[in-house]
């Protein structure tokens, strides 16, 4: 027990929380934007897998990080574009479409990986690049805080900045206001001339962009290569975090950090040969409890609102 506590109350632990939480922060912000737009999208897992693989392939063949990032964004966002087209234009079921894209992500990335590297497990054969870690001047010299906050991957800092950007987007811009209004009452939005489908499409593409950054981090930062199914449910945890945060930016960020802590803890327990499976459950148990609290308020018996056509 003592060993565990010692491990938790160490700067290394808090450092690892940020490291582990980075993809979760990205994807939960992505889910948040999409949720605000009133779209139920579960395809983040697929988006992240494609963007992770895209980043590896792009950087391996061009030997340029920028190209790697761009290819990653392109592949990830094309998944969200496909989702948007099916759900918004063709009116197909969002859950089924999302499910299909996630399975496509799982199988499709392995297939592409095999075609390119001849390996079905990981991309270690490709000489892909990584995004470097950086020390932050001044902060790095502050004891404790410097050890926790400095020396992270660039994308970890991008994730933290994205929190602010998303907050501003949703709360301080006309686009954010429109996204929220189409998400909550599309009829109201439509009646004042807002194009509902276009606005939802934009929300999905922003979501696709942010989620793809999370995918790119996984294969260019968290690990230096791509492995099959490396998202391991992070796309879904992002959805859970945005729900737990009630669609608000700061609570969603907090939820992502909470899940990140649970995951960091389970990593420690793994190294201490304790049953990490138990700790892996924690994020989900937390989610269930949160949803229970949120859901309790909505339980009201109401009549179906009828639009009367005379």
């Amino acid at each position, binding site marked *: 027990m003592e060993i565990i506590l010692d491990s938790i109350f160490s700067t290394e632990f808090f450092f690892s929380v940020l490291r582990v939480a980075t993809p979760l922060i990205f994807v939960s912000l992505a889910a948040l934007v999409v949720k605000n737009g009133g779209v139920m999208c579960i395809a983040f897992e697929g988006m992240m897998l494609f963007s992770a693989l895209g980043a590896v392939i792009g950087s391996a063949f061009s030997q340029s990080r920028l190209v790697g990032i761009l290819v990653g964004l392109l592949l990830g966002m094309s998944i969200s574009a496909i989702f948007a087209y099916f759900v918004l234009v063709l009116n197909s079921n969002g859950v089924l479409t999302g499910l299909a894209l996630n399975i496509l992500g799982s199988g499709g990335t392995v297939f592409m990986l095999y075609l390119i590297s001849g390996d079905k497990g990981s991309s270690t054969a490709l000489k892909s690049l990584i995004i470097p870690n950086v020390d932050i001047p001044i902060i790095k010299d502050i004891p404790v805080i410097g050890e926790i906050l400095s020396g992270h991957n660039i994308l970890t800092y991008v994730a933290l900045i994205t929190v602010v950007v998303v907050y501003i987007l949703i709360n301080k*811009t*006309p686009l954010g*206001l*429109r996204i929220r*209004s189409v998400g909550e009452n599309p009829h109201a*939005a439509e009646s*004042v001339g807002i194009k509902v489908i276009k606005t939802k499409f934009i929300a999905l593409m922003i979501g696709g962009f942010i989620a793809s950054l999370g995918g790119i981090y996984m294969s260019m930062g968290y690990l230096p290569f791509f492995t099959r199914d490396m998202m391991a449910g992070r796309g879904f945890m992002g959805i859970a975090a945005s729900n737990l945060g009630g669609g608000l930016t700061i609570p969603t960020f907090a939820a992502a950090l909470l899940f990140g802590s649970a995951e960091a803890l389970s990593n420690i327990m793994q190294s201490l040969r304790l049953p990490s499976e138990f700790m892996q459950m924690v994020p989900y148990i937390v989610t269930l409890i949160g949803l229970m609290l949120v859901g309790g308020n909505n339980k*009201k018996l109401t009549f179906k609102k009828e639009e*009367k056509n*005379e």
Partner: protein
Amino acid sequence: MNKVIDNTEYILRMENITKIYGNGFMANKNVNLRVKKGEIHALIGENGAGKSTLMKVLFGQEQPEEGKIFYKGEEIKITNPLVALAHGIGMVHQHFMLVPSLTVAENMVLGIEPKNKGFFNYQEAVRLTEEVSKKYNLPIDPRAKVKDLPVGYKQRVEILKILLRGVEVLILDEPTAVLTPQETEELFVQLRELKKQGYTIIFISHKLNEIKALCDNLTVLRNGRVTGTAKVADLTEQDISRLMVGRDVMLTIDKEEAKPKKTVLKVRNLTYKNSDNKAIVNNVSFSIREGEILGIAGVEGNGQREISSLITGLIENQSGEIKLFDEDITNISIRKIREKGVAHISEDRMTYGTVADASVEENIISDRYYKDDYNKYGLLDKKKIAELSNELIKEYRVKCDSKDAEIRTLSGGNIQKVVAAREFTSNPKLIIANQPTRGIDVGASEFIRKKLVSLRDEGAAILLISADLTEVITVSDSLLVMSEGKIVAYFEDTKNLTEETVGEYMLGIKKQTAEEIGGVCYE
């Protein structure tokens, strides 16, 4: 051509509007509406008379098959609501077009957001809201969230919203339907103020006292046609009522005098409040006896639906008692209520009456599939079920390919016959028939009415709720009239009752005394 001179005083003219919906229903037929600048013009008529359709045409939500719209003397084509708004015509819908979690100011400027270096300028939105609010003397807190506002204020936001967009003609679709009497009073003050400032208002309603109190001119619609246009001051409420409810065809039904026996259903002091704490059903008491059809007449939305939902257990009872054969049936499960002999024809047959994707047979057995009669060795007894459905399809003359046809493939009348076949054969002691013939063809309507009468003769107690006055008067033995959640009249015998009389009570012109109404309560 001397009319030309007249036309200049009208800010808005709708000429010969004809609107036919996709299903062939003619909602408007050669309708003319002329509205003068600066007046409050009432558009009145019963449910389904075509008021809303006409206004949807004006606001660009529906395109008419024929007819022209002239605004300020020029013909305009209104292809969508934005075009209407751009011309200066705005509408306050019955269902508010607001985003609840946003603030008043945010709702006000949605779609025309003020910007500051690309960011949303909330301060400016608040300022704009305060400005309009002050200009029209309609106070509102711009920073309040819409979901926290009472209904009257939500409506005010809607009015301010279209005023901010610079409209000159305001269409209000039954604005008082959702308001309390005090809020209604307040709304009228606001509307008179707007009129004083030169705005033109089209006020849709079926409440005559409101129209008398507020409006200058009126246009009456019935069955999609205009039956009268006049100055409100020139007409009595009775005149208007006659224009609204008069019928061309009289309906007759063969039935003998009712021989009511002992009391089946006793409802006492029933009150139901909605989430806005408005009493939708307000202290209602009545009884129904064996062998009697008790009708409830009234404009829709005056608490009838809630009464039927309360008795059948679809909504939770808040206060008051509902007793079936002296046994309390409030807040027990719907299945138990049904097993005690209550049958229910819902006004919404596609939601509460049938399952659209299931077959005729499955819908017929949906209230009895679990009973021993239809099960064998723990499995459904297919043979017996088939026998029953074929028999009922024949008896109720349901036109369908077979018992396995999906309900959705049937016409409205035949769907309703399936509902009737199920409900009427469950050996009911009490039948709650809510709008049983709405929107179905004449043949099926007649069939269902006859069935109701024959079930009455067999001893069932029947509550018939209908917005169709002719139907409710002819089919019922005695009649209640409801208005604003209360019973306002009771007629023990419907034999010599005229629609005009019922209409006057229904529209709130007349009201009976408590003793007269109390006549409907039997022990």
